[in-house]
């Protein structure tokens, strides 16, 4: 048995704190070290940053954009581009103007319109899984559900969908190992939208997000510039396709490894929304987002200097023992769940309600259509959108 790490060991370990790639395999140990005595600390990764781990401190920082700004980018490291993404990398006062254009499109009421299509798509893909003995639920279900639903909403043509997964993988998953590959994919995505916007100007439509952007007028009555349009499209592409696929995959990952949880949700599908909140809290696609400190400030007794990069570690806040009873356990009966999966403050994930709706419907239909399943390869990790092989009871019979 290993002894509890000493405080200086913890600081040393946390000086290498990372929240991407293989660092996620056992990031929970880092979070426990933070909560045990280092809730604000320093990592030397990615040029160096101060991390904030307590849920209340993270919300306070998110609610203080005048101290913790998003510029030059909330992505650390960069997401295949050095241009700011609208609106997530934009600070007040322009932020609200940019965000307002998208707001009405992501309300729960608008989502009711999308719901039947989400359900039909989930059923169709789940039926293909149910017919197999061993199936990759990430490749055949989690990713395509989201690609189909989100691309239809945005107006990304179906013929282009097969290109998307590789771009997403290069930008989001390869960036920490191979930034050049991420930038190359980022340039390909920008060129793709450059072309798509031109095609849409030549043949206008009225029923999707790209149309809304093309018709939008900014505060002074001008249309969006070409660069602004590309930035919005880029943001929607990287934010909308990957995160929800990860969340759906993570839920199925847990159910495949936890027979009693799977049995509970099969018997009580009305508990799926609460289960989805727990998956978002415990296995969130976004474990942290960056800020830049604009003026000297103090958080939990630690000084943070103007100019320092700061990472709000949502994943740590989501396991904060001061905010959650039994914080490291997935519990479907949790009555109080102010988790940070979607962040907070003025940059609260705009797609949170769409993401939630997709996650809940995907889990509902997957459990309804696919018979009892188990993990075919227990070593497959909880994070990312890599393969998730399931053995399906009675599949391919």
């Amino acid at each position, binding site marked *: 048995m290993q002894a509890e790490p000493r405080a200086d060991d913890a600081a040393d370990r946390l000086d290498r704190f990372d929240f991407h790639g293989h660092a996620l395999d056992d990031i929970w140990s880092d979070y426990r070290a933070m909560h045990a005595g280092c809730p604000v600390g320093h990592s030397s990764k990615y040029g160096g940053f101060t991390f904030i781990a307590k849920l209340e401190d993270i*919300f306070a920082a998110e*609610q203080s954009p005048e101290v913790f700004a998003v510029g030059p980018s909330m992505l650390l490291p960069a997401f295949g581009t050095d241009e700011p993404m609208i609106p997530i990398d934009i600070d007040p006062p322009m932020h609200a103007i940019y965000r*307002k254009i998208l*707001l*009405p499109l*992501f*309300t*729960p*009421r608008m989502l009711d319109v999308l719901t039947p299509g989400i359900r039909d798509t989930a059923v169709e893909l789940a039926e293909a899984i149910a017919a197999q003995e061993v199936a990759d639920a990430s490749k055949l279900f989690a990713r395509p559900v989201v690609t189909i639903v989100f691309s239809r909403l945005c107006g990304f043509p179906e013929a282009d969908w097969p290109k998307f997964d590789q771009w997403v993988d290069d930008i989001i998953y390869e960036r920490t190992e191979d930034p050049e590959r991420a930038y190359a994919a980022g340039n390909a995505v920008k060129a793709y939208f450059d072309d798509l916007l031109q095609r849409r100007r030549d043949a206008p439509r009225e029923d999707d997000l790209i149309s809304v952007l093309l018709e939008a007028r900014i505060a002074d009555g001008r249309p969006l510039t070409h660069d602004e349009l590309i930035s919005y499209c880029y943001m929607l592409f990287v934010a909308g396709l990957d995160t929800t696929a990860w969340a759906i995959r993570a839920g199925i990952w847990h159910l495949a490894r936890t027979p009693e949880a799977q049995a509970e949700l099969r018997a009580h599908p009305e508990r799926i*929304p609460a289960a989805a909140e727990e998956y978002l809290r415990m296995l969130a696609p976004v474990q942290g987002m960056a800020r830049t400190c604009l003026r000297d400030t103090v958080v939990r007794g630690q000084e943070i200097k103007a100019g320092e990069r700061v990472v709000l570690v949502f994943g740590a806040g989501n396991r904060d023992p001061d905010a959650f009873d039994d914080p490291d356990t997935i519990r479907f009966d949790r*009555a*109080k*769940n*102010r*988790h*940070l999966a*979607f962040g*907070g*403050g*003025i940059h*609260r994930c705009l797609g*949170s*309600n769409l993401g939630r709706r997709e996650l809940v419907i995907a889990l509902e239909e997957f459990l309804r259509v696919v018979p009892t399943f188990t993990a075919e390869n227990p070593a497959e990790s909880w994070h990312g959108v890599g393969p998730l092989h399931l053995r399906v009871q009675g599949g391919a019979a």
Partner: protein
Amino acid sequence: MRVVIDPGLCQGHARCASLAPDLFDLDENGYGVVRLGREVVPEGDLDALLAIDNCPEQAIRLELDG
């Protein structure tokens, strides 16, 4: 008691309207509002407490009447 949403804090997470739809609604931009005529609740009202406990921004509170 009176249920109040602070519009300066609400960021449209929509947890209140999702968990306690009889008490809360959303405006056209997705921000939470207390349903008209439902502002006054008894002390310990479960819907109000559920929404307060789950509002990420802590934008909902109970105030004494009058």
